[in-house]
């Protein structure tokens, strides 16, 4: 990355953050219910699941790929986790298994993409259907519900008055932001997404790092499944439908370029928050659910338009 592109990144981020603040200010003006501590807590909690998935998605998109399987992986991890929990296994074993299922799905994605050389769109589209089917077969279509209090604490509990999903989300973004900005994994991910050929020629083990990126995304889907199952006290094989699109939207609103090589975690967190705040505000204002979808779609289009306009200027 050059200096100028770094500075450009900060500018873009400022734009999205200002968008979020202005959105909040507008909602605070429109409805007295928006700006309360409990409502803002709700928004952040409601954002957590999408944000955690979007962190993995950001990594994948920066590497020049895409992962359409995340929503189905949430379902598969969730039902495996749920069946172990209700089957009397310990919390730690069940959690480890749920997360491992996520990582394993990511590994399959990574191997298909880096070693079998399938286009990411196709490989993960296939895996989206494979994992959804497996989740349905595994449960015979039935939700698994009724979990123990210690497990449910992961979604309903609080530490120092901060809800657990929010803590998990902040933890994920802390680690992911650090990894992306300060570690070899992060630098190589940008390099691969920017120019894969050049990265390979300069000695980056492209296959290894590309695979790693999908494994991380899968693992994070597993983590999202943990939060989702604990929140609803149920793991559903049909959970997580279309979550991939929400995650992609959060990343894109946050300035991640679908062309690869550009983006960062702070932007994605703000992007996910914009979507969460928007949904919350539209509920509070009692806007028809038909219009809500339209508005969210328009926000995505506006965000990408801004992104493209900025890029043209920076060239």
């Amino acid at each position, binding site marked *: 990355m050059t200096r100028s592109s770094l500075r450009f990144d900060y500018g873009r981020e400022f734009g999205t953050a200002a968008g979020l603040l202005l959105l909040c200010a507008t909602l605070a003006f429109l409805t007295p219910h928006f700006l309360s501590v409990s409502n803002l807590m709700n928004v952040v909690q409601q954002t957590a699941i999408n944000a955690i998935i979007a962190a993995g998605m950001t990594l994948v998109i920066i590497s020049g790929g895409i992962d359409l399987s995340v929503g189905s992986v949430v379902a598969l991890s969730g039902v495996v986790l749920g069946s172990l929990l209700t089957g009397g296994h310990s919390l730690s074993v069940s959690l480890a298994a749920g997360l491992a299922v996520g990582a394993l799905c990511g590994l399959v994605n990574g191997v298909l993409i880096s070693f079998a050389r399938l286009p990411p769109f196709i490989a993960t589209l296939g895996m989206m259907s494979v994992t959804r089917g497996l989740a349905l077969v595994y449960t015979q279509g039935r939700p698994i519900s009724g979990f123990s209090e210690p497990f449910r604490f992961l979604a309903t509990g609080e530490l120092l008055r901060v809800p657990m999903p929010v803590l998990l989300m902040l933890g994920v973004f802390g680690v992911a932001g650090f990894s992306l900005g300060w570690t070899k994994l992060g630098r190589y991910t940008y390099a691969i997404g920017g120019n894969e050929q050049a990265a390979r020629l300069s000695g980056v083990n492209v296959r290894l790092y590309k695979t790693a990126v999908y494994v991380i995304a899968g693992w994070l889907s597993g983590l999202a499944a943990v939060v989702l199952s604990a929140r609803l*006290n149920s793991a559903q094989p049909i959970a997580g439908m279309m979550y991939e699109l929400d995650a992609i939207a959060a990343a894109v609103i946050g300035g991640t370029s679908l062309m690869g090589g550009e983006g960062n975690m702070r932007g994605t967190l703000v992007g996910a928050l914009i979507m969460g705040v928007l949904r919350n505000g539209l509920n509070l204002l009692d806007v028809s659910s038909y219009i809500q979808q339209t508005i969210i779609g328009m926000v995505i289009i506006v965000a990408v338009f801004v992104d493209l*306009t900025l890029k043209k200027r920076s060239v």
Partner: protein
Amino acid sequence: MRYHLLLPVGLLILVSGVWSGCRPKDQAPEAGPAIALVMKTLNNPFFVDMERGARAAAQHHGVKLLVQAAEREVDVEKQMQIIENLLERKVDAICVTPSGSKEIVPAIVKANRAGIPVLIVDTRVDARALSDGGGRTVTFIGSDNIEGGRIAGRYLVERLKGQGKIAVLEGIPGHETGDARLKGFREVVDREPGIKVVASQNANWERDQGYNVLQNVLQSRPDLSAVFACNDLMALGAIEAVAAAQKTGQVVVVGFDATGDARDAIRKGTMAGSVAQHPEEMGRLAVEQALAVIHGQTIPKEIPVPVELITKDSR
């Protein structure tokens, strides 16, 4: 930097546009109580009818009614978000058609904690999950779906004169309504020695899946004599598949809900019958009973809404 303003300004324009768009609704009498109706989705005419009934009752009684629904019928997490958000608006009562019979429980508990009465409409809450979660609901307003299934079963047995092969299109597994219809239906047809259920497949409540599933069934069972679909969307898909196989008239199709499209099909003769529920009546009852609860009256634990079979001969 100038362009960074695009996103926030765009959002602002969007939100204020919507605000002005939904104003007329908000100018309804602010003095009366506020009741929220949270539905599964508004993509299904059944719930659109329910909304109409509720709105008419709300206007008649001077109630401020907030209607919200998730984009997809199966999205239990989104429904929970909507309820959380509406609790912030401090409505006086919440009527819910649960997207998941067990998954709704955490949201009910949240409403209980906020001291807001919860009325369940159309789809029952799982009684055990509710008592395990420590939640309370005021009443259940809805059809007797088991009886509805029996009515459909009895009609088909009569139409087929006790002889024939039946395919069943199921809704999403684990949905209380679908399960109850199925149970009532099987109760009747399984007693008939001449009737065989040759296929019982899930078509996810959707029209296109009803089409595809029945098309496949017809491939393997060209001698099929009847179809029972657990809702009209799947039944309407099924009659298209029957028509495509040029078997209209040979295969008797019975649906559930008696939506407008289904009634048209029954009039045309492509569909034999449909068990009518009365969603408008449910919407009306939901608002009126919620109002009674707000005024401190005690209401029955169960408020059944009658079901009836609609055929060409009825009216």
